[in-house]
């Protein structure tokens, strides 16, 4: 049974220290009211402050003002995954207020106050939002409620037990007297926060687990939502950039004589490895950039290509790896086995292609630096800007915005650093906007992985020993080096080491191999890579044993009840055991996959058709999810629907190619996205569960890729071991 490592991080940091009270000032005054701090690092040790502007403590999480408006200072960034709705739900449930009364404000960058209980840094990633906030937010709501009840009871001179909270008011049960929270907050602010809280029994939940409309929806349908790219600052100019087309290349010289003739052109900014044109508006900046004559020094990487990169990683994979998991003696058994299966799986470089192209607005002044951006890592952005400007970190103000998609891309601050370097050279605010071409050609890519996998097979056709040898870039080594232990990058092996199948001998190892280009997390991170390999290979073993892919898996999931349950339900909901009707043309097939990752269990069944031209059309995906207690079921459904189509897009078409050190794809015509006419029906079923919430933003993506490849095998007999599928099917 999987439990979140909540206790692991709880109370490791002593909380309640008031000394950081003045560390940062909240950008907007919330006025007089009840202010309750609590820690997402531990078990909600709360501190209390009286909410006058002077005494305002910046590391607060919830504030109730005299009008009864509740503000949460949100430590998560909304990227589309519905966190802005889920977090208020957690507070509102225990505080007994309507969700719509809860407002959110972006947290200022302060790692200690807003650190995520699971990640330990202010990061929105790894499907952790609801998982990390599940308990602390509810506890904070409960504490505030208890304090408000206490004040009302004192005023009425009755016992608090005779009062209850409802809809933003305290009610005295025997007399029916009521008082709104707003009238109580000033006094409540002087009370000590209760140390012991009792949380509701989940069966009494009124909000959690019920569909709630997304709070951010209205502004996103009328054009008023402000994404990073929409920022308007007085006197701001617009810049667009071109970085060295070859990774690691340098700028030699720029001739701007033609660019100067363009109306609206302002100036050229030179960086070590890039050129920017600043103009009155984007059109002039774009034209100006196109009119420049730029000379680059391509440096040492001008020679590589997709072919050479693949040869390099294949060679690297011949080395012995750092051991990530060892049970029994898998290598020995496989070496000596009569019956075995071996395969090599390859996953390509991928770009993120968030719908909102990369952008960042910066104003550098002598005494401070303002940055307007949508980022998953505000603290990192702040640190980098401080370094580049020489300013103290608290002189860098991050104004975080909505993200037009993250998917891992906005965990990186390369573009923030670049924008700061540009803004440093001028004395006005500058909004740096990348073209789509720049966005795709200067992404930080999901690494190429080269996995050798093998199994020794027993007399029943089951794997007796399993060996998974992973080779690829280590994102963690750059991103969070402390996480890499004894040469094992935990992300690179995630999804491979916690095999749900009962195999007596398991050996997983990892060879770090760095390509000459930057790599980064991509939706579903480690599991998107490893679950593809594991679930494809288990399918190969089933085929080799002549068994049905679902039955074969079920038998091996005997020690994994939650994984088994989702698979059984998926098989039932998808009518797995009834054959597909033959399509009008081409071939049809069904494929299955099972995933455990991010604390969530998923089984998926994909139905698809492959036509005579080898074009794949995914018709339907049945997805069964056990993600523990569900805060907002509709958000889980939405994340599965979107995550699944994101995964299908990647599995069918996703690949970044290189030639002469340059990215070959440039825009949506050659980096293909799924469109409306290609979207399958996605049917999501939630398993009712009392377990701790698991992540939902990523596992849908990770689970679907192998299910698609397995369905392609069922339809065509062709086993796709090198993604993307479209390329595998059209090349021999």
């Amino acid at each position, binding site marked *: 049974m999987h439990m979140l490592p909540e206790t692991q991080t709880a109370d490791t940091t002593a909380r309640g220290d008031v000394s950081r009270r003045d560390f940062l000032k909240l950008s907007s005054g919330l006025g007089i009211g009840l202010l309750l701090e609590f820690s997402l690092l531990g078990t909600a040790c709360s501190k209390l402050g009286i909410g006058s502007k002077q005494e305002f403590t910046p590391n607060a999480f919830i504030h109730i003002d005299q009008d009864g408006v509740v503000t949460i200072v949100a430590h998560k960034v909304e990227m589309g995954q519905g966190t802005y709705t889920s977090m208020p739900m957690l507070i509102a449930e225990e505080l007994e207020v309507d969700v719509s009364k809860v407002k959110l404000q972006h947290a200022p960058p302060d790692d200690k106050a807003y650190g995520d209980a699971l990640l330990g840094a202010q990061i929105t990633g790894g499907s952790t939002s609801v998982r990390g906030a599940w308990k602390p937010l509810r506890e904070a709501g409960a504490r505030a409620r208890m304090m408000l009840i206490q004040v009302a009871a004192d005023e009425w001179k009755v016992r608090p037990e005779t009062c209850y909270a409802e809809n933003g008011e305290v009610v005295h049960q025997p007399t029916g007297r009521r008082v709104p929270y707003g009238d109580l907050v000033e006094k409540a602010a002087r009370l000590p926060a209760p140390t012991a809280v009792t949380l509701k029994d989940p069966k009494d939940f009124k909000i959690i687990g019920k569909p709630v409309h997304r709070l951010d929806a209205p502004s996103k*349908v009328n*054009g008023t939502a402000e994404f990073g790219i*929409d920022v308007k600052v007085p006197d701001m100019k617009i810049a667009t950039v071109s970085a060295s087309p070859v990774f690691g290349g340098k700028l030699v010289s720029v001739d701007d004589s033609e660019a100067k003739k363009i109306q609206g052109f302002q100036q050229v900014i030179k960086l070590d490895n890039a050129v920017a044109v600043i103009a*009155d508006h984007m059109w002039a900046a*774009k034209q100006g950039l196109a009119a420049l004559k730029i000379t680059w020094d391509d440096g040492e990487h001008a020679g590589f290509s997709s072919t050479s990169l693949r040869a390099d990683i294949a060679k690297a994979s011949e080395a012995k790896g750092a051991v990530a998991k060892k049970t029994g003696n898998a290598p020995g058994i496989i070496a000596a086995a009569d019956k075995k299966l071996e395969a090599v799986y390859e996953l390509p470089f991928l770009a993120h292609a968030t*719908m909102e192209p990369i952008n960042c607005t910066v104003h550098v002044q002598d005494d401070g630096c303002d940055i307007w951006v949508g980022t998953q890592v505000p603290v990192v952005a702040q640190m980098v800007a401080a370094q580049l400007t020489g300013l103290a970190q608290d002189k860098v103000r991050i104004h975080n915005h909505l*993200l037009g998609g993250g998917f891992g891309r906005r965990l990186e601050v390369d573009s923030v650093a670049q924008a700061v370097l540009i803004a440093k050279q001028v004395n006005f605010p500058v909004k740096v906007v990348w073209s789509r071409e720049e966005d795709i050609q200067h992404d930080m890519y999901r690494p190429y992985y080269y996995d050798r996998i093998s199994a020794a097979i027993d007399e029943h056709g089951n794997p007796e020993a399993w060996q998974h040898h992973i080779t690829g870039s280590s994102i963690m080594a750059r991103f969070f080096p402390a996480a890499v232990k004894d040469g094992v990058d935990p992300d690179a092996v995630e999804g491979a080491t916690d095999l749900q199948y009962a195999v007596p001998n398991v050996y997983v190892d990892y060879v770090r191999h760095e390509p000459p280009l930057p790599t980064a997390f991509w939706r579903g991170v480690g599991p998107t890579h490893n679950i593809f390999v594991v679930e494809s290979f288990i399918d190969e073993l089933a085929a080799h044993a002549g068994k049905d892919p679902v039955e074969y898996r079920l038998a091996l999931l005997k020690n994994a009840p939650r994984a088994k349950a989702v698979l059984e339900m998926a098989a039932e909901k998808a009518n797995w055991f009834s054959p597909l009707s033959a399509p009008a043309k081409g071939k049809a097939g069904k494929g299955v996959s099972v995933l455990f990752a991010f604390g969530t269990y998923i089984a998926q069944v994909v139905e698809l058709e492959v036509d005579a031209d080898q074009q794949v059309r995914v018709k339907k995906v049945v997805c069964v999810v056990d993600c523990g207690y569900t805060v907002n079921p509709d958000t889980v459904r939405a994340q599965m629907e979107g995550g699944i189509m994101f995964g299908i897009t990647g599995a069918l078409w996703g690949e970044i190619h290189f030639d002469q050190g340059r990215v070959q794809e440039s825009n949506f015509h050659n980096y293909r*996205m*799924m469109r409306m006419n290609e979207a399958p029906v996605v*049917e999501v079923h939630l398993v009712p569960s009392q377990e701790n919430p698991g992540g939902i933003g990523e596992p849908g993506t990770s689970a679907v890729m192998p299910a698609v490849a397995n369905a392609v095998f069922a339809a065509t007999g062709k086993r796709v071991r090198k993604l993307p599928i479209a390329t595998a099917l059209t090349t021999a």
Partner: protein
Amino acid sequence: MITLNVNGDQHDLDVTDDTPILWALRDVVGLTGTKFGCGMSLCGACTVHLDGKPIRSCVTPLSAASGKEITTIEGIGASELGKRVQDAWIEQEVVQCGYCQSGQIMSAVALLKENAAPSDQDIDNAMSGNICRCATYARIRSAIKLAAGQPAAKEA
């Protein structure tokens, strides 16, 4: 000076008439609801209406709008149909990151204006130029049907 008519307001802009409407709206007029996604007429994020017809504003120069009326996402809710589509979007819980949705809504309104009861095929035809990286397609379809007064058929 070029005069641009946006959502009923006149704007005099000091830019060349080859400037795409997208950048004039966003960077000069200051209406940022219309989004930049690709700049090559590949994604639909920049869709606005020119005299009621959907266009990709990233590749349509200001010169094409002379004497015509532009409607953007900021103005579309003023019409009964526009408001109905926006409400359906909220009702069907369409948005995720939301970045593509201005363009999606503008395309959907244009479709429903021409075709009050679109079939699935009609929806595919009208909407396939609009990419949603968050892949909210099924809900966009339901929302269009809801706005058209058809049962939206969202699975339980």
